[in-house]
Structure formats: C-alpha cells, structure tokens
C-alpha cells in the first residue's frame, strides 16, 4: 500500500481512514494505492471512506463498528453526521438543540 501521510489506517479491518494533518478540497490524496482528488476538506480527527460505502454498511474504526452508513459515500469522501448514524443513541448538534429537534 502506498503511504498517505495525512490519512491514517488504525486497523486493517477499518472502512475509514483518520485525518492527522489537514487536507484541502482538491488536494491529491492516495487511498488504497489510488491517487484521487479529495472531494471535501478534511480536518484533523475527521474520517474519510477507505472504499465505496453503501447505506446500511457498518463504519469500522479501531477494528470495531462505530455506526452505520446512511447515504452512498465515495472513496475519499468525508464520513460524518451527514452520511452515517449511531447504532445506539443519536448524536445532536447545537442547531438541533436550539430548533427543538434534539
């Protein structure tokens, strides 16, 4: 596998990579040996898809499931609240709290 210094694979079973140095949208990143243009800006600590993910797929990090995909996600795309959900208790944002959706 070609090393991508900004995206870290924590466990061989993982379906995501963790960003450890900032990536700008359009930057060339290497994912599973394939160079592609980053579709989203990625901040430190955020996750990107290691391969194409479909609704219902488990998101695996540290070798363990951390939730499920809700929208089709391309390799290299950000994986976050917009395309995955908890399998336990839903997460909340400040907007959702102030709008009474939480």
């Amino acid at each position, binding site marked *: 596998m070609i090393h991508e210094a900004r995206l870290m694979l924590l466990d061989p079973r993982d379906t995501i990579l963790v960003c450890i140095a900032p990536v700008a949208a359009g930057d060339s990143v290497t994912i599973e040996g394939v160079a592609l243009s980053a579709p989203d800006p990625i901040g*430190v*600590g955020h996750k990107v898809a290691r391969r194409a993910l479909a609704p219902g797929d488990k998101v695996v990090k540290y070798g*363990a499931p951390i939730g499920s995909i809700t929208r089709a996600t391309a390799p290299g795309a950000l994986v976050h609240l917009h395309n995955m959900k908890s399998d336990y208790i839903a997460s909340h944002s400040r907007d959702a709290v102030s709008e009474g959706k939480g």
Partner: protein
Amino acid sequence: MFQGFLREDGRKGIRNIVAVAYLVECAHHVARRIVGKVDDPDVHLIGFPGCFPNAYAAKVMRAIATHPNVGGVVLVSLGCESFDRNGLRQAIAASGRPVELLVIQEAGGTSATIAAGIAAVERVRAAAAAAPRAAMEVGELIIGTVCGGSDGTSGLTANPAVGRAFDRLVGEGATCIFEETGELIGCEAIMAERAVTPELGRAIEECVAKAERYYTTMGYASFAPGNAEGGLTTIEEKSMGAYSKSGSSPISGIIKPGDVPPAGGLYLLDVVPDGEPRFGFPNISDNAEIVELIACGAHLTLFTTGRGSVVGSAVAPVIKICANPETARRLAEDMDVNAGRILEGEATLDDVGEEIHAAMMAVAGGKRTKSEELGHQEFILTYKAFDPLGPACLPLARRAA
C-alpha cells in the same frame, strides 16, 4: 518515592489543603468570600447546593472531607437546610482532622460569618500544618482518568497514552480508576472479557446497558456538539476512543462514587444512577466526574482533551494531556503533556505514556500542575441515587475476606 502527608487513618495524601465547604447554595456566597479573603492556593472551596437530603451527596461530601489530600475543614451552613452538618463534622473529627462549623443563622449573618470563617480557616490551617510527612511509593497512589472536550485525535494519542501509563501503574501496584459508562457504550463486550471473573464481566455489561437506558431516557448521548466539530460522529466512536484510557490490564472490580477500591489494580467507576432516572443527567459536566473520582480516593486525575478543556479541580490535582497538536499550541498554558506530538511523528505512544508517568510522579511529589498554577479549583456535586454494589463487583476483595 516521594514525601506525602500521613493521616491518622493510615492513608497518605499528596497535598495538604484546607477545604471550606458550603452545605447549601444559600451558604455558598459566604463560603466563597471566606476563601477569597484568605487567598491561599491551598484553601479550596467545595460544597453541595441542594436543600433536600440525598444519601449520595452526603457520602461524597464525607469521602472528600476525609480525603487524604485534605488537612482540615471549615463547614459553612445556613442553618435550616437538610444536610446533616453535625454528622459530617463528627466524621471529619473522627478522622483526626481539625474541623470547625459555622452556622450563618447563629453567627449573626453574612459579614459576621465571613469574619468568623476567616479566623476558623486560620486556626484549621495552623493545625493542618502540623500533619506529619511520610515517604510514599507509587503503589500507594490512586489515580483517576477522565476525558473532556474529546475530538477525533483523543482516541489516537492522549487516551491510549494514558492507557500505557495505567498499565505501568497497575504493574507497580497502584490503583487506577476509569469511569463514565455512558462513554463506554459499544465497548461492553470487549471490556467484559478483561474482567477477573465471568460474573464481574456480566456486571460490567449490565453497567453499560444501564447507562444506555439512562441516556436514552435523557434524550441525549454523552456527546457534545464540539465532539462532532472535532471529527467524532457517534457515541460508540467516542466510546472506543475513551475506552483506550483504561489500558490493557485486567479489570479488578466495579465501584460506585464514594467507594475507595480495596486494593491495587484497575477499577471501573459506575457513575450512572440506579433505578428510574430521577435527577437528570448522570454527570452534568466533566468536573462532576472528577469530583466522583476524588470521592473514590483519587490523589490526582489524568484528564485527556482534544478540543481543549482548561479545567482543574479542588482537592486533587488534574494533569491535562492534550491529544490534538493544534490545540496543544493554541492552549499551551493549560496543557501539562502534549500527546499531539505523536501525530506529528515526534513521539510514540510509549514515549508519551512514560512522560505522563513522570509528570504524575512530579505532581505527587508536590509540583503544581498547570491548572493548579492558574488557580482552577472547580467543584460540582448534584443529586443522584445508587443501590449498594452487587456481589459480583469486587470479586478479589471478597475472596480475600
């Protein structure tokens, strides 16, 4: 080896502070003014705001007022609240500590009580200064850990580095406590496998199931908007990162707030109340968790943060370990250890684990943490209800008995 403070009950502390405790919110201003006027970094304000009685709060206040870091106590009561002030005073006196009780309604009001309180602190402080010193070894320490303001780096750097430090400490005979079962949701099965008995493993799984039920009733997971801004998406993702603070030692038992572990080893503190949810969120903020760790005898707390918490605590020092290299630069004055260096290739997890251990030994020997130097002495205690520990919770202690 370092010099601690020997208490009459045989326990040893790493600080010799005087606690000024208000026993209801109505006495808070007077107590705070006493502490402010005395203006001594070793005189700390603690207290309980409620007027209604609560066995949990009474147990935690008693545990903290007789904590080995405490040399003496001044209690400040309004006079009509439910708190059993005489019971607390007697427990403190029975522990061999100097204690004075002020009742605002008897002392003549605000100004008279503040003046009397300042004089009481001076007497208690003078008596506490006579506490004998004694050599103390790492195996005599109780260390808690908590995370706050976590982000996507917490589980990569600071939390597993604390886990390394915990593994070394447990090997040295120390007592280590991790907590917040609401932030262990999703980790219950792997955690249960580390229990020293199968029965304890099942009790651990029940603790986490209780936490999930409780937080579901509250309507929110233990997950703040800042967690998401820092890259964490779900409670189970946050949990996996938080869980790594516990290291890899066997789990010796489950305790509840105010229980001091019976021997060295790694313990899970069950912070989620028992029974139907009654009083709101289990812990309304990170400092409520730190207070519970101290009530379990923690001499100091290892606090990991990614977004950048600045808090410390009354009574027991807080060592802050920053997971995120960007936060470590921005909030440098608040961070004791920069674990973010791991992401920049400047240190390994083992290096930072050793650094945490060294920082802890220095702080145990008297060196002040960043939060102590900055004057942080947060303290918060609210209402909870707990059942007694189940028979599976402390299997090793039972065997020895």
